[in-house]
């Protein structure tokens, strides 16, 4: 339902939040108010910073594809992750704007909350599923500012936002120092290595979801897709533990 809304709803208003930056490494992002009364984000393909994307091993358009692939994976895993991962579609909102390479970009829902708060990585109920997610998708950029958590809400979702630099492949690309997942780091630091029954079930779901795997195979670069499969299999096989930090 939300996907359809993102794909079809009219655009009420747009505010550029990243187009005036002169800073390397940032991406052109627009905040978009839809006629459906939802506010979301549009990350334009042409706005992705190419040098930074290449540092992470991705083509600029691949960053958008990664966001969408992450959402598809979350959807296959079920309610916890559909609540925590922004719904994302690839959509053109300004086809007349040639500067935006046809206007295509990743249009994502917003998950509101604070950044750099302790509860999500201190509480295993949040930290462990988030670590599982980041290990699964090969997240290269989950620092203390790259999640959202509403400290004033009751049992708020943990916003696992910004999956554009996920789906890492273990190649020479990873010769820099990407941002290790803080959730994987804290889960391992606390010694909670063993995957839960739920986590093993989720991995089983992915391995048997032939439609999802076929779609991801089409969307991701071959080395990204192979690395994803390899990560799933490494976790399913004994000793059935969460992957190490930066184990792509």
């Amino acid at each position, binding site marked *: 339902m939300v996907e359809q809304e993102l794909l079809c709803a009219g655009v009420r208003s747009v505010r550029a939040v990243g187009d005036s930056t002169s800073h390397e490494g940032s991406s052109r992002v627009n905040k978009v108010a839809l006629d459906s009364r939802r506010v979301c984000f549009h990350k334009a393909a042409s706005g992705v910073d190419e040098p930074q994307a290449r540092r992470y091993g991705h083509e600029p358009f691949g960053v958008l594809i990664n966001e969408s692939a992450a959402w598809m994976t979350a959807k296959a895993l079920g309610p916890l992750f559909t609540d925590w991962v922004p719904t994302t579609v690839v959509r053109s909102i300004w086809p007349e704007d040639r500067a935006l390479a046809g206007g295509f970009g990743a249009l994502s829902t917003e998950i509101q909350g604070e950044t750099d708060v302790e509860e999500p990585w201190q509480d295993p109920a949040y930290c462990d599923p988030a670590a599982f997610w980041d290990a699964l998708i090969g997240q290269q950029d989950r620092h203390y500012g790259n999640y959202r958590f509403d400290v004033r809400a009751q049992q708020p979702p943990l916003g696992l936002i910004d999956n554009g630099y996920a789906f890492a492949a273990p190649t020479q690309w990873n010769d820099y120092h990407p*941002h290790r997942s803080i959730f994987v780091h804290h889960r391992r630091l606390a010694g909670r290595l063993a995957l839960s029954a739920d986590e093993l079930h989720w991995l089983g779901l992915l391995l048997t979801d032939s439609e999802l795997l076929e779609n991801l195979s089409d969307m991701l670069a071959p080395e990204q897709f192979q690395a994803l499969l390899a990560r799933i299999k490494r976790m399913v096989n004994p000793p059935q533990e969460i992957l190490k930090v930066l184990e792509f």
Partner: protein
Amino acid sequence: MHRITITRSDYDFAADRWLTETVCSFVVGPRGIEQIDEGAGRIPRRVAVLDIDSGESVTLESDPERWAELLPSAFRSGDLTVTVDVEQPVEIETRTVRDRQPVLAEAIAFQAIRH
């Protein structure tokens, strides 16, 4: 000296306009955070940023001013906007009486970096 302001915006559908609120505002110098104007509890002190020139992670502790320069790159999702104003230190020239200027030479360069 780097003055950092983090803001958040939302759309008021009734009024048909964007609203902006300041999340936090603070000044970073060579020794770290030197002044906090707003939102002390919401400063992202633990956030590490990637320096794409070196490939290294930079933290507030390891290199405060570089961290401040790079902070906008850590917030790409769009909900938080990081603005950095770079303030050059004031220069005072005292040569001879004849050369002395009646008003202190002052150079302040602003570089707004938004994300």
